[in-house]
């Protein structure tokens, strides 16, 4: 494992992505100490003021400090992104493994279920589910997590179909490893590289999805902030007060880019076959 870390560090762009993520996570963790103002304190008379010494990133339509709201919003955006990403990865791994490894009717049922999920646009599905359960941090997280497993399951199933034909899987059967052991120890580790890249993309898209939900009022509720809700508030004033939409937009872009760079580096670092070329 140390060699894995050193290979990851050697990957310059991945390191850059990792640093950006660490900074964003630190901002989220230490928001109460870093925020210059109360993120919910309203100053209607100072609405849409641009950046100043007192309000480094300016003020939103209600005069709230955008920097403070973004610091607190990072907590919401990042944790929804991570947790929903991990949840859907977990569901996807279970479903994809069962379908790919055991095949037969298990495969048939799971893949048809995945196709049913994919015929309904995810955004509509999420809105409908949130409308039933009611919008809150937890419901948004769980619903997004449970609705985006299909990509993982399909990619993993395909990988497993290829890997389970490999001679080393048969060799493992020949020395008496059980199905569960073969799946967990021999098949899955050989299939993870594309999933890791998918997680990073997925976390990024979950952050965007949560932003869109918040924009429509189905996501994080006022006065709580997320990057998406700040951005959507700013959209209406983009020509007169561009700072409101720009800064949360940059934050989303930085997070998404950082996740992608890190995923790319992880993929290279986790692949023992690529070490050969060094």
């Amino acid at each position, binding site marked *: 494992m140390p060699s894995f870390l050193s290979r990851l560090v050697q990957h310059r762009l991945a390191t850059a992505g990792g640093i950006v993520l660490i900074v964003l996570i630190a901002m989220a963790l230490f928001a109460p100490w870093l925020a210059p103002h109360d993120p919910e304190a309203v100053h209607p008379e100072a609405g849409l003021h641009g950046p100043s010494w007192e309000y480094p990133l300016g003020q939103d339509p209600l005069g709230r400090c955008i920097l403070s709201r973004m610091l607190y919003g990072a907590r919401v955006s990042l944790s929804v992104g991570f947790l929903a990403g991990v949840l859907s990865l977990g569901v996807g791994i279970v479903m994809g493994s069962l379908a790919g490894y055991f095949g037969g009717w298990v495969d048939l049922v799971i893949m048809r279920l995945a196709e049913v999920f994919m015929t309904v646009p995810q955004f509509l599905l999420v809105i409908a589910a949130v409308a039933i359960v009611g919008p809150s941090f937890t419901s948004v997280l769980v619903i997004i997590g449970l609705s985006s497993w299909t990509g993982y399951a399909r990619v993993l199933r395909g990988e497993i179909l290829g890997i389970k034909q490999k001679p080393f899987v048969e060799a493992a059967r020949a020395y008496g490893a*059980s199905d569960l052991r073969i799946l967990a120890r021999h098949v899955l580790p050989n299939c993870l590289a594309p999933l890791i890249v998918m997680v990073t993309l997925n976390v990024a898209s979950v952050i965007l999805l949560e932003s869109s939900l918040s924009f429509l009022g189905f996501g994080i509720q006022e006065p709580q902030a997320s990057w998406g809700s700040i951005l959507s508030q700013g959209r209406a004033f983009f020509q007169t007060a561009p700072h409101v939409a720009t800064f949360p937009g940059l934050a989303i872009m930085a997070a998404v880019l950082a996740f992608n760079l890190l995923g790319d580096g992880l993929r290279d670092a986790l692949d023992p076959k690529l070490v050969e070329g060094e």
Partner: protein
Amino acid sequence: MQQLLSVQNLEVSFAKRPVLRQVTFSLAPGETLGIVGESGSGKSVTALSIMGLLSWPGRITDGKVLWHGEDLLQLPADSHRQLRGSSMAMIFQEPMTCLNPVYTVEQQIAEVLMLHQGMNKRQASEAAASYLEQVGIAEPKARLRNFPHELSGGMRQRVMIAMALAGKPELLIADEPTTALDVTVQAQILDLLKRLQADTGMAMILITHDLGLVAENADRGIVMYAGEVVEEGTVSELFETPAHPYTQGLLRSLPRWGEQQDLLYSIPGTVPRDLGAIAGCAFADRCPLSSVACREQQVMHMLSPSQAARCRMVNAQVKEGVAR
């Protein structure tokens, strides 16, 4: 002597097409049995059936596989699995891909030790080096940390053998263990297998299409053709007094040392595709001696206590074969 393994009238079909018919042979503890035959003759399917590794659409339709007198085909799948790797181990043709690319040599040997010798992770890691030493790998401690892609083909096959040994098997099935290796490495691997057999007393089934390997390494051999055992005997019987026309044809096809030959002999015709359509001798279409009677079901004719051939013409053949 109590037989270690006895295969009786084993029949296997792939999606209702028969691929093994009435395969019968046995193996004593410590003995080496060579199984010779061309591609598709059912050598590997026989091995997989013994190991319980036959997978869909392959299915055993009839027969018994007795292991110490107990029928493996009646065992629950999980009990058969526990025998694999501990009582019976198998090494394969492709050493390049039989090792898992994401684990080090140490982790892979240790896994077998943990599965079959009840060791914990630390004990297994410590013991792994001694197995590498046993299979003749230099600097075993350093090699343990290598990933499979860092090893040569011969080294990987040695690692596979070390993993097979780690379960302390009574039977090692080697399915074309040297086909993918170059000739000098082949000889080393076979010497190694012989030495290990002498050290541990395990029996071995050597599956190959190379008659030379059987001549040099096996005690007895069986010749398979189109899913049937066509001849069985000690190695000297098979090579000196082959009785079945197919065995004779195979031996004639070998290049001879010191003999000027422009064109090697080959048996005319090809292996029949659909065994289900053949009632009698599968070799009849290519056989110089075939007659109408060969189209009926054939049985094994004993030629000596250890030699038998599935050929009607066998009595006449023996005389001719000896005279040759």
